């Protein structure tokens, strides 16, 4: 990964964090809001690989944990696991279509929210929120899908990776 690319991702994580704490709560629909940190982490995992996605998930999740009144480390853990697994699953698909991150974000929103709850359960936290699939997880997943439709093209615009370059060059008649 180039230096510029690293700086771009760091800036994107920071921007996602600021938007997540300051702007997204203003746009809650039916009590849920998109998780921009997860969206960015999954997009990075798709474009750069599982470990890069995990690092972004960890950093973003840790920033959210530091400012939020929640158990510190849980957000970082669940975002890391979700982004890493999204990156691993991506390896099975040979496509650069936007449908891939859309699908992965949809699936891994379920996983991230579930890991979050299961970790709290394992810590013996009392009065956990009900595991509301239809009321919380599904709307959050759909909201994240909307967010990835905006985030992914931006990342593609600023990330003409070597992989894609070689793929285009390898196309018959591609020069």
């Amino acid at each position, binding site marked *: 990964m180039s230096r510029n690319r690293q700086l771009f991702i760091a800036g994107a994580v920071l921007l996602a964090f600021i938007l997540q704490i300051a702007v997204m709560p203003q746009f809650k629909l039916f009590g849920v809001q998109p998780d921009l940190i997860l969206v960015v982490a999954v997009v990075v995992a798709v474009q750069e690989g599982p470990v890069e996605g995990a690092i972004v998930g*960890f950093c973003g999740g840790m920033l959210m944990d530091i400012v939020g009144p929640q158990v510190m*480390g849980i957000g970082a853990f669940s975002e890391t696991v979700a982004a890493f697994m999204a990156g691993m699953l991506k390896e099975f698909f040979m496509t650069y279509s936007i449908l891939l991150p859309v699908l992965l974000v949809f699936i891994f929103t379920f996983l991230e929210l579930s890991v979050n709850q299961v970790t709290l359960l394992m810590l013996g936290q009392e009065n956990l929120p009900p595991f509301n699939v239809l009321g919380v997880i599904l709307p959050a997943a759909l909201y994240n899908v909307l967010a990835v439709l905006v985030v992914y093209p931006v990342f593609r615009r600023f990330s003409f990776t070597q992989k894609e370059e070689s793929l285009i060059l390898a196309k018959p008649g591609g020069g």
Partner: protein
Amino acid sequence: MPSSRRNRTILIVIIIVCISLVTLYVRESDTGPLHKIQNFFLDLLSPISNFFSKIFKPVKDGIVNLFHLPSLSKEKRELQKEVATLRRQAGESRELEAQVEELKKLLHWSETNAQLDTVGADIVGQSPSNWQRLMIVNKGSSSGVKKYMSVVTEEGLTGRIISVGSRSSVVQLITDSRSGIGARDLRNRETGIIEGRNEDTMRFVPMNDEAVMQVGDVMVTSGLGGTSPPGIVIGKVTKVKKRAAGLARLVEVKPFVRFSRLDKVLIIITPEPESVILKEAQ
């Protein structure tokens, strides 16, 4: 392969850091270093949240109004029905007696309120998590705010303080699933607990399993538990559903406070929550 070994090492380090942090955080007290770090950043970021909150308020209000249109129309129909029922009942002397009784209770409530010392606060942010119903206010320990203090509006009980920074605090709304408030039914004086469900309505669990609950019953704080002063209105019973096979009944309570339109709240400074007083005495 060196790169895969490096990746594995990074991942293991991340997981170990997360688990260590979670363990340390859960084991330390509210005054521990990790909690202090959270409170410091809460203070630091609350002006930023406030700034963006003000900028996006018109857009947010527009969206809220758009989504509330169907419910407003439904609410209007329900209110019209309620008005008709009340008009019919107004002539009955029994209802007049009940009204006198209600006025006595309200008088008692206003007398109690006069003794409450409150501090006004602006809402500057909301929870970034989908699992919590929290709000951030711009008053903290420098204004005398302490953990577990009740937060109210003129509509009724809003929540309680769960985390305090020097210039900001986190309010756990009564609809949060971790919220439990000692409550009393104004009509039959039955006590119990009102639990949040992360939904727009809450659930009342009466102490007495045989308590006769009716739709329309007004719920107030009981004062039991020591965090909220007694007599603060919470909400109205909207549904009483019996469940089969000996399971608990569902008594649904709709809060009087409209959380989506909150701007300012009052934090009850005195009387202090008993749990805090007891802790400080130890």
